[in-house]
């Protein structure tokens, strides 16, 4: 009896361990695949033409700067919307809303997160883009801003649910301590609860940004996909072409093994590296914050 129990335990432990390691394995394999398919691009076209500002691969113009800048503009815009909205909603749900309200809001926000992005894209084309064109008097409504607004909407549920969990796990004693010292509700939230949940909230922001930079369908439908180099804030109000939309739009037609194919994989590699860097920065900040907190507590 005891023996079989320990055997079962052994197998279960190994299985869990294997599934943990498999995540690392898969990321490694994917990165290896991207490298294998993307690196040949560097030998087929020289680096200077990759850093060109013209993207028209049909005629071997393969400058990827407009695409990188396009992705950054849209993602930055989305973050500017999703972060304050998401954290605000999370604070409201976890700290301010009465219990019955919380029971309604939380599932609703999660439902929003489950909306297919192509549906949001339709909404963008038919409602948001025409509205923005008239409201802001732009030549066209298919702009980076339209993409940012929708991506913000997509990222908000992610930010809310992770940040809300982080706020929720702050011990009640912290808040009671603050109230006992005469702090108002706002002071408690701003000075005590949010700082205490800092690492979780930061993770929420990073996950939200990651969701936004990787989103494809919506941006392809509403940003106009014009590969213009974004140079300033004004680019938010003109069409842009993101890396994800480029890969999605062109991968289906490209000849296997051609230069264009390798350049598309190179873009995928750049995208992968960008999200890797975002994650590393986030976790190092979280790590440092934790160490400081431990120092203070000890």
């Amino acid at each position, binding site marked *: 009896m005891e023996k079989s129990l320990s055997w079962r335990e052994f197998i279960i432990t190994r299985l869990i361990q294997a599934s943990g390691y498999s995540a690392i394995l898969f990321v490694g394999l994917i990165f290896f695949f991207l490298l294998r398919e993307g690196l040949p691009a560097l030998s087929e076209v020289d680096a200077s033409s990759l850093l060109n500002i*013209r993207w*028209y*691969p*049909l*005629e071997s*113009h393969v400058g990827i700067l*407009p695409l990188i800048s396009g992705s950054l503009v849209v993602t930055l815009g989305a973050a500017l919307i999703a972060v304050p909205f998401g954290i605000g909603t999370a604070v409201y749900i976890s700290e301010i809303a009465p219990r019955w309200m919380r029971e309604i809001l939380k599932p609703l926000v999660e439902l929003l997160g489950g909306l297919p992005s192509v549906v949001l894209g339709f909404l963008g*084309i*038919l409602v948001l*883009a*025409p509205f923005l*064109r008239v409201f802001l008097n732009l*030549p*066209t*409504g*298919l702009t980076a801003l339209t993409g940012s607004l929708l991506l913000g909407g997509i990222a908000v549920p992610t930010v809310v649910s992770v940040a809300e969990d982080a706020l929720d796990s702050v011990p009640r004693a912290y808040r009671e301590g603050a109230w006992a010292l005469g702090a108002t509700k706002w002071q408690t939230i701003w000075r005590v609860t949010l700082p205490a949940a800092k690492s979780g909230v930061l993770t929420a922001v990073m996950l939200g940004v990651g969701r936004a930079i990787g989103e494809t369908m919506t941006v*392809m*439908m509403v940003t*106009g*996909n*014009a*590969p*213009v180099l974004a140079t300033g804030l004004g680019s938010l109000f*003109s*069409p842009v*072409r993101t890396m994800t939309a480029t890969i999605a*739009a*062109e991968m*289906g*037609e*490209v*000849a*296997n093994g051609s230069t264009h194919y390798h350049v598309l994989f190179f873009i995928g590699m750049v995208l992968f590296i960008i999200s890797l860097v975002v994650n590393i920065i986030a976790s190092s900040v979280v790590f440092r914050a934790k160490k400081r907190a431990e120092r203070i507590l000890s």
Partner: protein
Amino acid sequence: MKHLTILFLLFSFFLTSCGTSNNSSNSNSPANYIENKGSDTIVNLALAWAEKYQGDHPDVRISVTGGGSGTGIAALVNGTVDIANASRKIKDEEIVEAQKNGVEPVEHIIARDAIAVIVNPNNPVSELTLQQISDIYSGKFTNWKEVGGEDRPIVRLSRETNSGTHVYFLETVLRLGSKEDKTLFSMNTLLLPSSEGIISEVRDNPNAIGYDGLGYVPKDLKMIAIAQKDGELYVLPSIETVNDKSYAIARDLYMYTNGEPTGIVKEYLDWILSDEAQQIVADLGFVPVLK
């Protein structure tokens, strides 16, 4: 419990019967199955044909998918389809690639298509020369008043680069058919992934100019009458003007097969050129092939 058993038996019987019927159709007559893939311009037409043909020949199954001309030809080269649809002629390098795989692409003209240049109904511009359209798309003109319209910025819409329509428009309109011409689309041309995207933006935006297959332009949008050269007649696209070749932006649509078609594929292609099938071409807004 008894009910459950019966249900289970019925269910398994159903499953096995499905399985056997599938097997029999696969093993007895693989030749009754036609795989047809390619140009998104042709996909609706190919679907309508396949539907009609299967209705009259219940023993034949035709599967139609889109994906673009290049996708279809690539599939023919890889031997995964029987017929590839293309809205452009096969490229030389695709023929070389095909021959490497032992595939000999044979061309069949199955319909004609015209590209209509469309603007918002509120746009007063109704006539343009090919040169003017080229200058609009290359970025030389940026305001509608330069071609006799209102003082509005021009928003250029195009299909994505993976669309046969895009390549055709680039070669015939932007470069006016000249091989040496290296004119490109202006960098801020919006590249939209679907016909619907272009149509909804043109319908909504008085600044926009777009192009799409004649068959896909809804009645509430305004088509531009086009002249080959300055001083020539401005011609609106229609079945008549495409057939008498007076409309400038028209092309042939193709199906490619591996070698001269035989058996069921040949029967299907022969039917496609019949009056009955070419009537479907006209019904969908394309232009029938004249014999």
